[in-house]
């Protein structure tokens, strides 16, 4: 009798550990879901039904109902060109070139939410530029000569998200083959 009680206890304990480890895994690990280049990271698993259960769980947790890669590609940057964390109280210049996609945007987030600002502007997009062969934008509390991506000016980490809608076949095949925008710190308050 005691043996069966022990076995059942082991079974329940094992199941509990299994559930907890499955629940925590997508929070703790990315399972190679992220590919990185020049400070930008892109999630290969988002919208990919053929991904393994770990990648699917990670994608559901971090990008639920995102468009699949054939429709849109997302990059995020947490660091500038020097590898330093992006900060809300710093100003940055964002320089880019032609991106092989029909429409693109760069949005700024604090704690994954829009950065509150008086201009009610949370992103820049390709339609704001006359030509996107070479483009430049500024991130900071005040506008400059370049297209302006407003900051709330507060201390703390910031994330930029680059969205590429209707990407070319070359971009779909290898998102890291393109030249991604460069983020250069200009100063901090």
């Amino acid at each position: 009798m005691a043996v069966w009680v022990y076995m059942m206890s082991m079974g329940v304990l094992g199941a509990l550990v299994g559930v907890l480890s499955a629940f925590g895994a997508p929070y703790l690990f990315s399972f190679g879901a992220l590919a990185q280049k020049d400070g930008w990271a892109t999630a290969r698993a988002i919208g990919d039904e053929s991904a393994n259960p770990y990648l699917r769980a990670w994608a559901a947790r971090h990008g639920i109902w995102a468009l699949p890669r054939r429709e849109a590609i997302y990059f995020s940057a947490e660091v500038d060109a020097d590898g330093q964390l992006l900060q809300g109280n710093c100003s940055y210049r964002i320089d880019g070139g032609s991106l092989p996609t029909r429409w693109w945007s760069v949005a700024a987030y604090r704690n994954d939410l829009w950065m509150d600002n008086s201009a009610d502007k949370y992103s820049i997009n390709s339609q704001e530029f006359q030509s996107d062969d070479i483009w430049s934008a500024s991130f900071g509390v005040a506008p400059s000569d370049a297209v302006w991506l407003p900051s709330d000016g507060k201390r703390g980490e910031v994330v930029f998200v680059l969205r590429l809608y209707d990407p070319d076949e070359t971009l779909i095949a290898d998102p890291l083959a393109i030249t991604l925008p460069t983020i250069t710190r200009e100063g901090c308050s």
Partner: protein
Amino acid sequence: MKRGVLFAGVFLLSCVIAHLIFLDMQPRFSTAHTVGIMEERGRQWNVLSVSRVRKADKNFVVRDNPDTITAFAVMNLDEGPLAFTMPAPQLPLYWSVAIYAENTDVLHITNDKGGVECVRLTIAPKGAPALPGFEMVTAPSDVTVLIVRATMPDRNDELEVNALREELLAAKLVPAASNNKDSLGGCS
């Protein structure tokens, strides 16, 4: 010694099985969690709603795209198939209609590239018939999610944004019964 091995084996086996089952269910849990939050905020099932342009202090969607207007519906096919129609929006540089299963799989995407004049979809469980002239989207689960995304050139241009909203408000989601075809508006 034998008992120790037996106990360890039971522990490991139940751990691995529970881990794999729960891992496989996680996308469904994510859907249920997100839909639950939406229900708490008053969103109704099988009702298509078009977003308004919000400011940062009113927006709590994680990594929301500030450059798109969306039409969104959480659907429950338990009570039967649904029909979705939308005249192709003319104003956005990009638009798409995406339908997701409860396990977050992408079931269907229509975008502006195919020269579509009108999107007509029947969203139904396996085995249900499609409405004549409607593309069939077979859902493996009762709970499905529909999202229309349309890009805005400038979110602060009120006239332009309102015109784009009007285009999305022409989209309809109704039960796919033949007597509902009149409810589908000018795109039936």
